[in-house]
């Protein structure tokens, strides 16, 4: 939350509050718009999808045109003519598990095939696992090699017709390998090991041929089930943690109060009275309604009007009840309301009226020095005029019902801020529930950072959809 802008000295502190609130909710609204879809997923990483033909040990092997299979073409003479290929991108780390598979089409003369992970700049004539910062599960001896020429007993050998998979579990920081759909073993991924690892396959004797699957086809191994099991393990630890009694109930109630969902709250309270055993959140539990009970009915009324698109009616109510909010024509609250009114007029096809309204009320927001968010929004709104089917245009997001909610939430926050008992600004903007969810997200992100940026972080959106 920004503190007061330095510019408009003559703004009363209330107006600048309005400014901040408006910007806050506008910024939040951008998440839902088509304009900022990529920002949302911080966990976007490139994913390997084919073999890297540029740095592979050419001369010893040939990669098929589809870049998904490789054949050893030389006659292997020693330990430095291995045909090694890496994937085109490194293993993505911001997830629970990464996994890929190979299918042994032909084990050739000696079946000296390997699957594993190697670092950038790996010596591409050596088997994965024979050098530091690499590991490999070898088909001819079934051993696991981890950075040394000597391997350790690990799993079965594998040959023509076998499907072998290699994966990294970021929660347990382990490598794991599978053969024909079943896990054969796991090995700790040392902390010192290079962060950036590439899925790697290798062939080393005459006529060996291997295909690779980076997820384009169904795996022989049930990866989804494995991930589900991993999540379940963590879930079971978490489930054991005790909670204070009725805390969820209290937070839901506070949420309803915060946003002014009065009818829901009344039904909720009524039902709780007849619950067995009856739920009572006494003061000991810490819930203090005083502050958020404020103006409940009025907030509900205004929200309903805005949600129904009746902007004029909403503004009239505000003039009656909270004139200070809509007094200044240039306040963010007025801005949002007028924009929404413009959008509502377009929605019903009253284009001439919309233009008239825009000229009177919105033009003044263009070219304001500070807030380019206002500018951008006005431009988007006006652009709607150009389309016969505005809903289908790239500005169609403005016509979504959720936009009305943005305006309603802003006005709700503004009304809450008029409460003389309101201690801090944050209380107007965020319900307790929201604060807890933010804390949860921030903690998980920070925890992942502390773990070298690897693993799954919490994302509410993903959990709910």
């Amino acid at each position: 939350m920004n503190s007061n802008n330095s510019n408009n000295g003559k703004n009363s502190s209330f107006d600048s509050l309005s400014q901040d609130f408006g910007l806050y909710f506008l910024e939040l609204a951008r998440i839902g718009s088509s304009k900022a879809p990529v920002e949302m997923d911080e966990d976007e990483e490139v994913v390997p999808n084919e073999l890297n033909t540029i740095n592979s040990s050419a001369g010893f092997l040939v990669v098929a045109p589809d870049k998904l299979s490789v054949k050893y073409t030389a006659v292997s003479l020693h330990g430095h003519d291995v045909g090694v290929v890496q994937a085109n991108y490194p293993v993505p780390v911001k997830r629970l598990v990464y996994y890929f598979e190979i299918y042994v089409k032909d084990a050739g003369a000696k079946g000296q095939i390997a699957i594993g992970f190697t670092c950038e700049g790996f010596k591409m004539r050596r088997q994965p696992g024979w050098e530091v910062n690499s590991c490999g599960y070898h088909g001819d001896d079934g051993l696991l090699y981890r950075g040394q020429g000597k391997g350790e007993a690990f799993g079965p050998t594998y040959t023509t017709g076998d499907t072998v998979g290699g994966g990294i579990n970021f929660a347990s920081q382990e490598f794991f390998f599978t053969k024909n759909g079943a896990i054969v073993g796991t090995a700790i991924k040392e902390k010192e090991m290079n962060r950036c690892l590439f899925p790697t396959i290798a062939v080393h004797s005459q006529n060996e041929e291997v295909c690779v699957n980076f997820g384009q086809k169904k795996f022989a191994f049930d990866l989804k089930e494995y991930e589900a099991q991993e999540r379940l393990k963590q879930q079971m630890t978490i489930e054991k943690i005790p909670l204070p009694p009725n805390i969820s109930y209290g937070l839901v109630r506070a949420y309803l109060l915060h946003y002014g969902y009065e009818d829901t709250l009344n039904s909720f309270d009524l039902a709780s009275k007849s619950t067995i055993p009856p739920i009572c959140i006494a003061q000991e539990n810490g819930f203090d309604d005083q502050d958020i009970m404020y103006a409940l009915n009025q907030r509900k009324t205004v929200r309903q009007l805005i949600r129904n698109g009746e902007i004029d009616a909403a503004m009239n109510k505000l003039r009656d009840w909270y004139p200070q909010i809509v007094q200044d024509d240039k306040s963010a609250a007025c801005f949002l309301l007028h924009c929404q009114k413009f959008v509502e007029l377009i929605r019903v096809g009253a284009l001439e009226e919309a233009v008239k309204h825009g000229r009177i009320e919105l033009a003044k927001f263009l070219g304001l020095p500070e807030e380019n968010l206002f500018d951008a929004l006005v431009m988007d709104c006006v652009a709607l005029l150009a389309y016969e089917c505005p809903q289908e245009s790239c500005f169609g997001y403005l016509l979504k019902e959720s936009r009305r909610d943005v305006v309603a939430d802003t006005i709700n926050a503004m009304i809450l801020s008029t409460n003389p008992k309101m201690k801090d600004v944050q209380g107007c903007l965020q319900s307790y529930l929201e604060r807890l969810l933010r804390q949860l997200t921030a903690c998980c992100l920070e925890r992942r950072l502390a773990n070298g940026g690897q693993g799954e972080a919490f994302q509410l959106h993903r959990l709910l959809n």
Partner: protein
Amino acid sequence: MASVKKVITREEWEKRLNDVKIRKEDMNKLVMNFLVTEGYVEAAEKFRMESGTEPDIDLATISDRMAVKKAVQCGNVEDAIEKVNDLNPEILDTNPQLFFHLQQQRLIELIRNGKIEEALEFAQEELAPRGEENQSFLEELERTVSLLAFEDVSNCPVGELLDISQRLKTASEVNAAILTSQSHEKDPKLPSLLKMLIWAQNQLDEKVAFPRINDLSKATLEDPTV
């Protein structure tokens, strides 16, 4: 020598909190999920109207489920069983443990109401055959029947069976089974998230000093302890 933990100041942490993107729609979904799973039908209806959030389960089925739950909570087990079968006869068919617990509750209610003869008959006809099939059922049956041996049930070792908490346990079990049969998760998501918060804070605490929220009901940040 102990290593020094990295410290994140309050200001720095608040900035990170502000960078988090939480959608209003997602919070609404979380609340709706709570209302629906816990069975607050009218509240869920009103919430749908006031917030435009669609429930993830057919609201009509909630009333039926709540009627069953209530019946058990009030000790009307026969009524509850009838209602469950009306709702979906497969639930009890595929859930022998649940069915046994409901029958056990019936027995408890008969004993509670002093209907000793009826209780004995019921135990012999309905519960004993179940007990033969399953060792743990048999043990439960024995515990329940032993209530009859005591004049003063409030002091006997199995007195807890007569406690309301036993009814609630059974009611919860039925509620969960119905939800599962409707392919819905039996627990609301919100409590798990709260537990996850506590867990995440403890995990992070091992590596970093940062502002914690210790009182979930007030959601206030405490300054980081150095």
